[in-house]
């Protein structure tokens, strides 16, 4: 067999293999992507919450995208406590001013960043939240202060539609 012939044979085999692999990949993608959030889940992006009945010091929990969202109306004392912390000492440095645009209202995902449990309110060594699963302590701004959680509790996208209504998402 001449070299030329060998080359052509190799070319056909290689191309067949390569094209076959591309096809298998293209066929597998839908099988994987079907587990991603579907169109109806993605569409449920936002929820509106009436907060007119929440007194200072109280907090309510609402469900958004299947997760609890804590809406806490903080007292002046709690705000002061959150703002006086030197953020250099924090595990995940974030200013309280960045976390709560309106200092009276803290809106955050009530999910511990360690392994996803829901922390308890008004508990823990820093007067904020305490996660009972593995002992993470959060302060009055929802920032991680002690325990295994790596980051502060997440702040979702939200806005005040008017003084009494918060739109999350």
């Amino acid at each position, binding site marked *: 067999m001449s070299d030329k012939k060998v080359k052509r044979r190799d070319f*056909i*085999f290689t*191309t*067949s293999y390569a*094209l076959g692999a591309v*096809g298998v990949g293209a066929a597998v993608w839908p099988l994987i992507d079907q587990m991603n959030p579907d*169109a*109806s889940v993605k*569409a449920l992006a936002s929820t509106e919450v009436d907060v007119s009945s929440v007194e200072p010091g109280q907090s309510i929990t609402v469900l958004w995208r299947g997760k609890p969202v804590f809406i806490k109306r903080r007292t002046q004392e709690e705000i002061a406590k959150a703002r006086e912390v030197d953020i250099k000492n924090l595990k995940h440095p974030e200013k309280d001013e960045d976390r709560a645009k309106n200092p009276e209202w803290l809106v955050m995902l009530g999910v511990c960043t360690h392994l996803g449990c829901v922390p308890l309110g008004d508990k823990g060594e820093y007067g904020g939240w305490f996660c009972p699963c593995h002992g993470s302590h959060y302060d009055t701004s929802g920032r991680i202060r002690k325990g295994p959680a790596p980051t502060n509790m997440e702040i979702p996208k939200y806005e005040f539609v008017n003084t009494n209504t918060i739109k999350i998402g």
Partner: protein
Amino acid sequence: MKNFLKFFLIILVFCLKISFISAAEQTEKLLNPGWGFKGFFGKFDRGSLQRGYQVYTEVCAACHSIKYLSYRNLSETGGPEFTEDQVKAIASQFEVTDGPNDDGEMFTRPARPADNFVSPYPNEKAAIAANGGAYPPDMSVLVKARKGGADYIYSLLLGYEDPPSGLSLDDGVYYNKYMAGNKIKMSNPLSEGLIEYGDGTSATPEQMANDVTTFLAWAAEPHLEARHKMGFRAIIYLIILTILVYFSMKKIWSRVESKV
């Protein structure tokens, strides 16, 4: 022996013929205006879909639900492709029941794009009671749920006629030449100039029937355009790969003195 085989073939052909004749006797031949969404590259006509949505809301929606669709579908690709703001405005015209709220009460609020289309009746029994004992079928998959598909819906909408002499119809029963048994409890829904199209198209019954059927065909098969597109690519790909594999096979089999 050969004769025996012939005998079987004759019977087969005979049966086929009979069935075609009897099929032709039972129903009128359906009208087909030529659908752009059929065939290898079939796509929906956006303008027709948008007009069809208008016909649906202004004419059909009073009785027929379309409950498996959401308002957001109206802005999705492959559909009527209204803008998201238009869809928000459309949705907000409808009231949906939500709740319970913190006091345990159900309440109504304007619909959002994520909500399913609001049905005209609370349940099937109510729909039957309000329509003289006939259930106006849900239109979500209607085109797929009828033999003849889009052709049938289109024909039915244009198939109202005066009953032949000697046939008397009860009150609330109408004559339609495409309906099985020719008796239908829906009165002729379309008439010349019944609605005023936003884009200035003249609203003849044929035009409205065409538009609303196109809309319903999309409602039944919202991913049709994506399917056609993917199908074309898949088949081209398979043909190319088949040719390559054929030559690979020839090469491999050339090592043994036997034909593939």
